[in-house]
């Protein structure tokens, strides 16, 4: 790891102040479970880390009386998984948190860091491959080893977004607070993530270098929500998703009133499967509907060889998620 300066602010103001006019390359450090691996591989080599851990007030989970939830960026994934209120009221989020990494990663890794983590594509992670994400000319996955790459929303880069929390939080309609030295903005999490074709190819989010993600806000779910997170991974012990489904569902007797279906592990962003949601809205809660929703979820999906399996896999996971709400 290259040498760097460790800046330990004790207030959010000092933290964003240190990002305001960077005279050298600066990165924000929270749990470090992704950033330090990137630094060890020389993928990023900041001169300075702004360490958020001494900043008060970012490590709390708070519910309002009405059921809205605010999660500080420094809340660990493990604390989220174990929080009684989250388990009871936001099941999809608790399940997603429990599926992240290993116990060691969950006890240190943070919610903010999980949302801001970089891609796991092995070309990106190899310090020897100068891929599109690192200023090169080519996404090597297209003609190379693409078993783990995107079937939806790809091009010109075919990374998949690795976060488990992101699909769950998008399904819950979450927003995030992004703070800089001159103010703050609220961004719907669904718009926080950017497709490779939409913005800076080197980034996955709209977060600027002078901003810190400080909080995640989950609105109070409408009454009667059922939700679940179904994840399929290659290795049973712990792994990133080959494909995953975050489902939030509201039923009216035997019919579906409304559903939100968000896919993980298959697209460069948490992928809102709107055709699946449309197939579910107002339809009977039964196997034939689940099959139509599954078809809708992979509408437009395209494999390019080794990742073709993700299409039937995703369809199966959508049906499994719906069945589990029966």
């Amino acid at each position, binding site marked *: 790891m290259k*040498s760097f300066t460790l800046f330990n602010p004790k207030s959010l103001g000092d933290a964003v102040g240190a990002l305001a006019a960077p005279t050298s390359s600066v990165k924000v450090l929270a749990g470090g479970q992704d950033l330090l691996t990137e630094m060890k591989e020389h993928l990023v080599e900041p001169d300075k880390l702004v360490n958020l851990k001494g900043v008060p007030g970012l490590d709390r989970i708070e519910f309002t009386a009405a059921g809205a939830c605010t999660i500080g960026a420094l809340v660990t994934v493990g604390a989220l998984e174990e929080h009684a209120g989250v388990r009871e009221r936001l099941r999809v989020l608790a399940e997603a948190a429990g599926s992240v990494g290993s116990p060691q*990663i969950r006890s240190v890794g943070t919610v903010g860091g999980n949302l801001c983590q970089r891609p796991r594509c092995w070309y990106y992670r190899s310090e020897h491959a100068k891929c599109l994400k690192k200023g090169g000319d080519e996404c090597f996955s297209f003609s190379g080893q693409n078993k783990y790459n995107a079937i939806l929303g790809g091009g010109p880069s075919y990374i998949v977004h690795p976060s488990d929390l992101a699909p769950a939080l998008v399904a819950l309609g979450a927003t995030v607070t992004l703070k800089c030295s001159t103010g703050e903005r609220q961004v719907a999490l669904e718009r926080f993530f950017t497709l490779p074709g939409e913005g800076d190819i080197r980034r996955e989010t709209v977060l600027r270098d002078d901003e810190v993600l400080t909080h995640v806000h989950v609105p109070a779910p409408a009454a009667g929500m059922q939700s679940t997170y179904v994840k399929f991974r290659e290795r049973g012990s712990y792994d990133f998703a080959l494909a995953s489904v975050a489902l939030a569902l509201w039923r009216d007797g035997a019919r579906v009133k409304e559903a939100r279906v968000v896919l993980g592990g298959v697209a460069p962003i948490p992928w809102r499967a709107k055709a699946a949601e449309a197939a579910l809205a107002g339809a009977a809660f039964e196997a034939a509907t689940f099959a139509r929703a599954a078809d809708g979820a992979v509408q437009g999906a395209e494999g390019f060889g080794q990742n073709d399996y993700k299409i039937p896999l995703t369809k199966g996971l959508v049906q499994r998620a719906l069945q589990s709400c029966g």
Partner: protein
Amino acid sequence: MRQDPNHDEENAERADLSRRLFLRNAGTVAAGSVLAQGLLGACASERASAAAAPAAPAKPDGAPEELAGEFEIVLDVNGEARKVKVEPRTTLLAALRERMEPAMTGTKHVCDRGNCGACTVHVDGKPAYACLLLAADLRGRKIKTIEGLGAPESLSPLQENFCAHDASMCGFCTPGFVMSITACLEKQPNADLATIQKACSGNVCRCGTYPHVFAAALATAKQAKKG
């Protein structure tokens, strides 16, 4: 060499360290040395106070702190205040194994990327990968390593069961497994197999001793149940 900003200190010191590890294994540990080394780590009697060096100056509350170069910190390791000179980039793993005097080599350096679990320690009672923690960020936290669990003459119940159930082959992953299961059993003393397996999911054993590891953990949980 440590002054060179581009120098990867952990990698460069590995060759030196493996010689030290080999000599210690050969010289101080009897039959079953690798297992014993894994289970016990360094002996308490080997410890001495670190050489004095100027500590990072204390800052008034609320003032930011900027750490650069090499500086001395104090870490709470197994209930002892251990002085150690680190840089901002020094991981807890490097601080324990390469910078403390005497070195604490019970925590193993394997992947150095948070994949294998060999460097598992407890921070404030929770399992964490020492290779993915900055030492300077752990001031004021309670760190427990394999050396803090038992002594050669008084193994922890789990360590006893690792011996009884032959739960080590090469032994390099053993300290990490012991730390992960210890954290699990501290939280849930009568944990069942599924809970134990989940607690070990961040630890890899390339020899494949998993069934024996689980048997040792379950035996410890059953003993806790009996009281």
